[in-house]
């Protein structure tokens, strides 16, 4: 009875809505996502995290540190999300959690809890403007991330580079609703759905 | 001059040039037996019943702005007594009974319109809660009916009763005697009737202090000078904390903005009051044709008497989820009022811990419907120096006793009620 939750297009490449590719959507498959928490004022915690994940946790709010294997997103003054789309140091969860616990930090596995998309194209800022953030490059600098609401749903955006592409992450139970909203507002500019690709 | 169709016809002959003042605007005397602070429905009703029921007419009602300019003049006019908990049920039912005779009592048509109040149920849990309440009402001698989805679809054809709705309508609790009343007329009607019994209504007179001597009130400081009184009743919805603080009392109350809005006027499309707890929404159509609707608070303390867009968006989204055919109507005006949100969602009507001081307040979303009973019981409490059994449960000390009247079970978070 219930309509298929995955509204038209998800994971099915193709063009939707008006002609053109005003926005381009692709699922960015997450291989793993871990939430690191800890006190930045403790050098041993920062050092341990660097050693475990090969990345320096960014301390400036809403900034991103990237390595070839993963992105470390500042999501709170004591909280980071490490996201990898493929092979990465995000393995041996238990051992790494113990190692962080030992320096007063914490580690949580959120690998299955988020769905991510790469949203790009000339109209990206307009389509994402269902969110109160400013997606203009002057308001959302490359190399930063921000959390906010998309409609009624909490979401996280990352702008890795100075182009029109954002990564957008939402909790998995809401993903269908958010997808619907993206398609609805994107249709007037033309939506191009491309094949899923690993999160970058 | 008594109002009637005959006086109207007579005055028409003189081109309505002979109507008298509805109420005087006297200069404040230096002393009254009782001073009522707040010229909203509750304050004016208190004064009216003091004079009418207790023969105490050396009374002043002090209003900082224009009378009826507080929440009495900005509420969505829903009148009902469909409560679950006994103290609420008995109190609001007394009020509803007073509403039924109010126009004639005041000789002022307050347009109490018993068009029915329907609470929608969208889930089995909603139905359980509504039926539990309805059963309690019936055992308390209050009218209530449970309507099936089909009954509702017949009665209110523009409601979306389809099972595909996000919050499908599965039934509803109707109180047939519930309805609406004309908000401004309530203030004006009480003012005129109180004035006729000798009560002084002083507008543009803000109370800025309460003088307390030896633990008892002596009078009020106002923008028009000191006014002595041995008894002071507060009826200042939204501002209760500020007035109580003048007498050194902290209340279990926060002030929050509640917004409402009206559509442009259209020919009759809705003749029941419809509410939905699931989407926090209520709506009725006024006699002028506007759809009057509201929903939740703005969720932060405020005395600004204005709100922000998100709640308006939410109210309208809820409206259209229920009534998709209203989509092409328009919002004509939005506004906000300052509500006293109490810690258990119920009012405080009774004596305060300073001799001679009493209050009726803490109305949260819904004190308009309480106006007649609140005034009546407040007057009783002032005149007798003790509460009536119908307002005894609404005493301030119920919080320390643990005897809160928490209709929603939301706990001591005032904005959750």
């Amino acid at each position, binding site marked *: 009875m219930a309509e298929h939750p995955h509204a038209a297009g998800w994971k099915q490449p193709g063009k939707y809505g008006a002609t053109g590719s005003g926005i381009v959507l692709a699922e960015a498959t997450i291989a793993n996502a871990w939430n690191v928490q800890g006190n930045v004022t403790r050098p041993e915690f920062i050092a341990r995290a660097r050693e475990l994940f090969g990345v320096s946790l960014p301390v400036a709010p809403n900034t991103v540190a990237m390595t070839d294997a993963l992105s470390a997103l500042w999501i*709170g003054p004591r909280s980071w999300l490490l996201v990898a789309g493929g092979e990465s140091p995000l393995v041996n969860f238990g051992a790494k959690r113990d190692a962080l616990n030992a320096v007063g930090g914490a580690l949580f596995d959120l690998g299955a809890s988020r769905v991510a998309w790469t949203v790009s194209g000339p109209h990206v800022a307009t389509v994402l403007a269902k969110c109160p953030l400013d997606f203009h490059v002057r308001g959302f600098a490359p190399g930063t991330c921000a959390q906010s609401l998309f409609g009624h749903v909490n979401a996280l955006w990352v702008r890795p580079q100075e182009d029109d592409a954002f990564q957008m992450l939402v909790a998995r139970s809401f993903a269908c609703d958010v997808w619907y909203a993206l398609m609805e507002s994107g249709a007037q500019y033309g939506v191009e759905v491309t094949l899923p690709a690993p999160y970058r | 001059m008594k109002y009637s169709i005959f006086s109207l016809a007579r005055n028409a002959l003189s081109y309505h040039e002979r109507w008298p003042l509805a109420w005087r605007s006297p200069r404040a005397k230096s002393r009254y037996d009782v001073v009522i602070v707040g010229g909203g429905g509750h304050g004016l009703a208190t004064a009216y019943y003091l004079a009418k029921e207790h023969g105490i007419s050396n009374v002043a009602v002090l209003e900082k702005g224009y009378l009826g300019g507080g929440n009495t003049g900005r509420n969505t006019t829903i009148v009902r007594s469909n409560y679950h908990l006994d103290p609420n049920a008995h109190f609001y039912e007394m009020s509803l009974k007073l509403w039924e005779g109010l126009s004639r009592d005041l000789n002022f048509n307050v347009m109490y319109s018993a068009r029915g109040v329907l609470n929608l149920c969208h889930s089995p849990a909603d139905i359980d809660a509504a039926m539990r309440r309805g059963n309690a009402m019936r055992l308390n001698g209050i009218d209530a009916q449970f309507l099936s989805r089909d009954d509702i679809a017949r009665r209110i054809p523009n409601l979306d009763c389809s099972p595909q709705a996000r919050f499908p309508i599965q039934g509803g609790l109707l109180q047939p005697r519930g309805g609406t009343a004309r908000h401004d007329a309530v203030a004006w009607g009480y003012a005129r009737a109180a004035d006729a019994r000798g009560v002084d209504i002083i507008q543009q007179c803000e109370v800025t202090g309460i003088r307390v001597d030896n633990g008892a009130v002596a009078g009020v400081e106002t923008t028009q000078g000191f006014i002595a009184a041995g008894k002071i009743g507060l009826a200042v919805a939204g501002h209760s904390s*500020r007035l109580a603080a003048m007498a050194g009392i*902290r*209340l279990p109350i926060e002030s929050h903005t509640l917004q409402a809005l009206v559509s442009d006027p259209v020919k009759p499309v809705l003749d029941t009051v419809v509410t939905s707890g699931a989407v926090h929404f209520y709506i009725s159509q006024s006699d002028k044709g506007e759809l009057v609707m509201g929903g939740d608070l703005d969720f932060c303390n405020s005395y600004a008497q204005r709100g922000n867009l*998100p709640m308006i968006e939410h109210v309208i989204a809820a409206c259209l989820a229920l009534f998709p055919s209203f989509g092409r109507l328009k919002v004509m005006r939005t506004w906000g009022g300052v509500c006293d949100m109490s810690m258990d969602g119920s009012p405080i009507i009774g004596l305060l811990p300073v001799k001679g001081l009493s209050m009726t307040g803490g109305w949260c979303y819904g004190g308009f419907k309480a106006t007649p009973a609140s005034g009546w019981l407040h007057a009783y409490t002032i005149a007798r120096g003790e509460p009536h059994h119908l307002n005894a449960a609404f005493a301030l000390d119920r919080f320390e006793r643990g005897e809160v009247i928490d209709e929603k079970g939301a706990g001591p978070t005032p904005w959750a009620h």
Partner: protein
Amino acid sequence: MLLIPCPWCGARAQIEFTYGGDATLQRPAVDATETDWVQYVFLRDNPAGAHQELWQHSAGCRQWLRVSRDTRTHEILESAPAVEASPGDAR
């Protein structure tokens, strides 16, 4: 709609936040009297004017903030982290 300055994320729309009420309330000691607890749990100053209040940046960095806001005008006067300390700092 309020624009609430988050000490970490910058000025953000009100809808990203959850209100937490009066920030001046001090949790009584565990052995405080019942009266102290009644006052803490139920009574409020509810001022008209500057109000110290808590907001959580719930759709953002999830931090609880202490905001000073004028309840008559909604003007935001100040905003700071709820507490400056981090877990374990005290040790």
